Each structure stands twice: as C-alpha cells, then as structure tokens.
C-alpha cells in the first residue's frame, strides 16, 4: 500500500519523460518544417541549426539516461538481450550525430565486420555508445573512430578520438566520480557511470561486462572501451 502523501516517483518520471520526448519531437519536426527543403542561407544559420539539433538530441539522451539510472537504482531495468549486428549499432550512432559531425568538420570512421553479430540489449548499448560518441566529438580535434571486434570470446567496442585524451584521474577510476557528486565534471562522469552499470548488467558464464578508459592508440587521443561477454 502506498501512502497517499507519497507520489509514485517512477510513474511521474516516466510520464514526464514521455511528455518531454513528445515535445522535443514536435520541436524538431517544426524546425524541419520551417526550413523545409531550403538550404540554410549562410554559415551562421547552418551553425545555429546544428546547435539546435545537437542540444535537442542531448536533452533526449539525458532524459533516456535519467530514466535508465533511476530504474537501475530501483533494480527495475529489465534487459532485452537479443542478437544484433554490431556494425548496424555503430553506424546508427554515427547517423544520429551526422549534423553535428558535419558542422564541426569531424570525420567519423567505423571499423567492424559487417556480419559480426552479438547478444546485447540494443537500446541500452546504443545509449552508451551514443553518449561516448557525443563526448568524443566534443573533445576531439577532427577524427573519431568506432571499432568493434571479438576478443577472448567477448565483444569489445572502442570509441577513440584524436583529442588530448582523458584526464589522469578518470583513467584510474572511470566510475569513481559518481562517489561524490561533482557537477563540474558534468555529463561525462554521469555518462561513464551509466555505461559502467549498463555493461555490468550484461553477464554470461560468470563474466560481467565492464568499461575501461585509456589514452593513445592509433589516433593518439582518448579511448573508451566497453566489453560485453
């Protein structure tokens, strides 16, 4: 029995998020309709449009993440594991961020076998990769690379960039920032926390998924890595 004075927060959250997502989608649609097939008149207008799209998709991602985190805490996040093509997952995240990539003149490449498939929760992993991609776009110079392969019978996905890399503190303990609330580190540490929890939910034969950060590699920038058993 719930106390009358206590509102069901998950219900309020879910329905508000539903509402906000609807509004966002109306906003994006009206934006598209306003511009129609017309090309932006000048660079300023093009940039403005890109920023609008970028911010709208960030709000959308945050909303999804927020609900995800709340459900994680309540142990209510059911996992919908199914077999999916990894290439499609990666390509979709690039497509989602195309406007942003173009406006910032960043090249995104994908390195993954077309027929490589794996078992995971598509929406959950898509949220994680999208977050990390947006993050990489923010800190890179001009390149991002998504790659995936099977290593030791686990799926390993990497999001690499050619920026200055992750700060030393984060490399040591990617999820550590969540132990104390630090608003300055912003969405990066929240995103990493979510990524770590999402990875952990995937388990097989006693192995749990995990995340790992490092610097260097081919692009000599930051590398985010998620392993799914």
């Amino acid at each position, binding site marked *: 029995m719930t106390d009358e004075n206590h509102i069901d927060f998950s219900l309020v959250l*879910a329905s508000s*998020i*539903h509402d906000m*997502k*609807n509004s*966002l*989608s*109306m*906003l*994006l*649609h009206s934006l*598209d*309709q306003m511009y129609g*097939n017309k090309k932006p008149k000048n660079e300023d207008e093009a940039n403005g449009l890109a920023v609008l*799209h970028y911010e*709208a998709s960030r709000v*959308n991602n945050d909303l*999804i993440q927020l*609900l995800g985190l709340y*459900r994680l805490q309540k142990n*209510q996040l*059911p*996992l*919908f*594991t*199914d*077999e999916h*093509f990894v290439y*499609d997952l990666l*390509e*979709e995240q690039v*497509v*989602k961020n*195309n*406007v942003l990539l173009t406006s910032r003149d960043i090249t995104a490449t994908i390195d993954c076998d*077309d*027929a490589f*498939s794996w*078992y995971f929760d598509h*929406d959950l992993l898509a949220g994680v990769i999208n977050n990390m991609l947006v993050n990489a776009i923010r800190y890179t110079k001009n390149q991002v690379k998504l790659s995936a392969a099977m290593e030791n019978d686990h799926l390993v996905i990497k999001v690499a960039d050619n920026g200055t890399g992750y700060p030393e503190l984060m490399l040591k303990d990617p999820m550590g920032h969540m132990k104390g609330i630090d608003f300055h580190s912003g969405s990066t540490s929240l995103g990493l926390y979510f990524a770590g929890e999402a990875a952990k939910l995937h388990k*097989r034969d006693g192995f749990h998924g995990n995340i790992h950060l490092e610097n260097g590699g081919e692009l000599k920038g930051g590398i985010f890595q998620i392993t799914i058993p």
Partner: protein
Amino acid sequence: MLTDQYQQKRFLVVDDFENFRNSLKKMLFDLGGQYVDTAANGNQALKRCEQVAYDILLVDYNLGDGKNGQQLLEQLRLTKLLKHTSIFIMVTAEVDKEVVISTMEYQPEAYLAKPFTLGLLKHRLDKALRRNESLHDILSALNEDNYASAIAHCDELMRNGSRYSSWCLKTKADLLYQLEHLDEAKSIYQQAARERQPDWALLGLGKTLAKQKYYPEALRTLTTLVQNNPVALEGYDWIAKIHQEMDDYVSAQKALAKAVSISPRSPLRQQALAEVCWRNNDWDMAIEAYGRTVDLSRHSIHYGPNNSLDLARCLTSYVAVADEENIERLKQDSLHAISKITKEFKGNSEVRMQSKLIETRLYAAVRDEKKTKEMINTVEAMCDKSDARRAPETLLELARTYTFIDDKEKAEEVIARLTEEYAHDPLIAKQIDTLVETPVSQEGKDKVAQFNKIGIQHYKNDEFIVAIKKFSTALQLYPKNIVLNLNLAQALLSQLTGNTNNQEYWDRCQLCFMQVEHISETHEQYGRYIQAKKIHDSLKQPSLN
C-alpha cells in the same frame, strides 16, 4: 545514395496526430518515396491494408481511442494482411516498460523511437530493406505457407555464409517444429543452446521436449530460459502449459501470474490465467483475470462474446459457493455482466440463450426458485420457437444448467444429443466430460485411467493421503465419475479408520456417496458402493468441537 529504391515502395503511415502524419509523409517524400498513404487510426489502417498490399508500414503505438499499434500489428499478422515480405516499423514515444514488453510479443521488423531525424529513419529503412532483400526467397515462400521451400532457401543462405545465417538457423528450426519434424528441430535447438544459450534455442528446445512429452526436461530448459531472461514471456506460457499437462494447476497458475505481472496487456494470457485460477477455485483472481480479458480484447482481434460469457459463468459459479456476506455483491456483479452481454451482442440469438441460461443458474444458486423456473421456461420457449441447429456451446450451457437445477432427465437428453453430434470434436468432448460419469473424449478416458492407476498404487502402499490427493485432483476434472468417487471414498475410509477425528475427510466421503447413490443394483460398481457405505456407517461421525 539508395534513394531510388524507395520510388517503387508503397508506404502507409499510421498516427493519430495529423502533424506527425504530415511530417513523416514529408520525410518519406524527401527519401524519394512517391506512394505514401496515411491513416489516423487502427480501423482506417485495416481498411487501407485490405485494399493495398503495402511494402512498408510506419505505425505509432499510440493511436488514440480504439486499437493501438500493437493490436493492429497482431490483427494484420493473424489475418495475413501483412505479408512476410512487408516491413512493419513501430514508432513509439513510449518509455513505459509495460508498453515496450508488450510490443515485443508480436515482433515488428523495427522500432523507431520519437524523436528521430530523417537520417535515422533512412538508416532503419535501409537496414530493413537490405534484410528483406537478402531473405526474399524465404519470405516469399512463407507468404505461400510453403515451409519446405522456405527451409531449402534457409539452407542455401547458410551454405553461402549469409549475414543472416543465424536468423536462417532459427527460422529453419521453428519451421521444422511447425512441420512436426521434432527430432530435427530438437537437434538444431540443442546445438545452438550448447554454444551460447540464445532465448530462441531454449524456448524452441523447451517446446519441442514438451511436444514429445519429456516434461521434466522441458521444464528444466524453460526454467533456465526465464532465469537467464526474466522477460521471456513465452517461456512462462509454456511452463504453465506443461504444468497443466501434468495436472499441476497450482504451479501453472504461479507461472502465468508471474508472466501477467511482467506484461499485463495480453488478453490471451489473461484468459489462460483466468481458466487455471477457476480450476484452482481461486475465484477472486479468476474474476479479475476474466475482467481484464474482456477489457483488453475490446479493440483487438480477440474481441467476441466468449470472454464476457466466461466472466459471467465464473461469477455465477462463485455465487454458488460464496460466503453469505459476499453473495449479494457477487449476484449484482453477475447480473451486471449478463446485462452487458445482452446489450452488446443483442443480434446473436445463441449468445442470448447462453446468457439466459447463466442467469438461470444464478437464480438457482441464490435459491430463488420462482425466478429460476421463470427463466428456464423462457429459455425453453426460445428453444421451441426456432428449431435451428443449436450451437454446441448453447447445448453445453443447457446441459450445465439442467444438471445444476437437478433436472436429471433433461440433462441426460441434452448430453446424449451433444455426445452424438460433437463427441468427435476434442474441445467439446472435453467439456462434455465434466458433465458425465464416463469421459467421452479419449484424453479424458486416458487421464481417468492414469489417475486411477497411480492412486491405486499409492493406496496399495498404504500411502492413503497421497492416494486421496490423486483421486481428488482427478475428480476436479471428472466430478461425476463413479469409479473415481468410489476409489476416493475407499481411500478416505482407510484414512478415517486409523484416525476418525477428521471432519473434512468425513464430509468429502459423504460427497462421494452423493455422486454415486443414484446407480442401480445392476451397475457393476454397486457392490463396492454398498460395502463402502457399510464401513462408513460403522465409523462414528467425528465429534464437532
């Protein structure tokens, strides 16, 4: 750009918001589409689909009043208006867990979460089209229900190392299962389950084992499935089916209740739960589940009078056994349910008769003799007026009612007519079994024989309590069976001889005799009956404390 591939495609956009319809339509034009129809609700969409075989459907889950996207998909699949070669994309702004889980039951080819950009739409469409092109030969064979050819094409794609090999393997196994090539299906499932336990392999293996009647193994497999993936709903459905096959209705109810708590929106599952609750005499649960079945099926393909009739039947049966304090409320609920049926299906005379018969039993249950008589007279007049061939459901209802109001002669007459005309129909025969002494269905005959065998075995080992349990379970299914009643009485008496102070056993023994007392002296079980009765009478009735 692949845009010209959209020129030839026929699109249907279904959304209750005009804004969304128009902007999606515009997106499709931007992609090169030329043939784009729209519909504002489920019924409009159905009508369009009857006229045009669309290649790609983009349907919002939320369609306002009436059908939702899920119910539309279900109906299109079941009526085969949606071809295997078509693509159904569910568009949703829902983040509600219940909605997400319920859409998974009739899997659309793709999902698209609002808000989405033109780029993302194109990406999803490209992927779905690429898949359908690769699988074209298989999907076309499925359109024609040519499973053998579909399997051959699956093999061909797998030989060529297709990107979709693992889908082909699953499809091949599922088709083999449908064709009842169970050993072949099983070996595919087993191998896939060994390699890495995907849901489809465990589910397929469980179903196959169940069909081959390896029940304990099937249960183990399906339990692993739901442990790995607690939202694998079909797993619970099959666990419940197997428990029912093994006559363990309590475990069946548990499994279905769990599935319903995860996904409450499937009318078929609610109905299955209601039936098993009824069997377990869990009346409140049964009525709740029947009520939900009625509500949930309203806009779906499962809509019809039977759900409402079941609810009324269940309520009426509850009245017959309910406590004094609940009778009035339940009677009102029953009358309400019956009057709703009468209004909703007033054009259907069979349904009208069935609901009147249920009402008759209701009055009999509350011992309103005057009204009972009036009602049965009304029904009989309706029967006489038209000599049309009665639906078996109506005859069953008639037999149930005559039995309930203790008009043995007329009950036997109706049952004889039913048996003569419908004994070959296993579903009807199963219903007749509940009304007669000796089952008419082969399944019923086998079950009674089996229960008797097991019960007698326990009896011989002096395990009276287990024997009593076995015979009682069987009697729930076949309450009028003479041999079962006498066997139960004998087991109860043996237990009572050791310990006379059990009122419950004493009462149950008397109930057994009541079911048997009408048999004639020439009945082959008559001697046993008299002997058992003698033992019973020689025992002292337990004193009431």
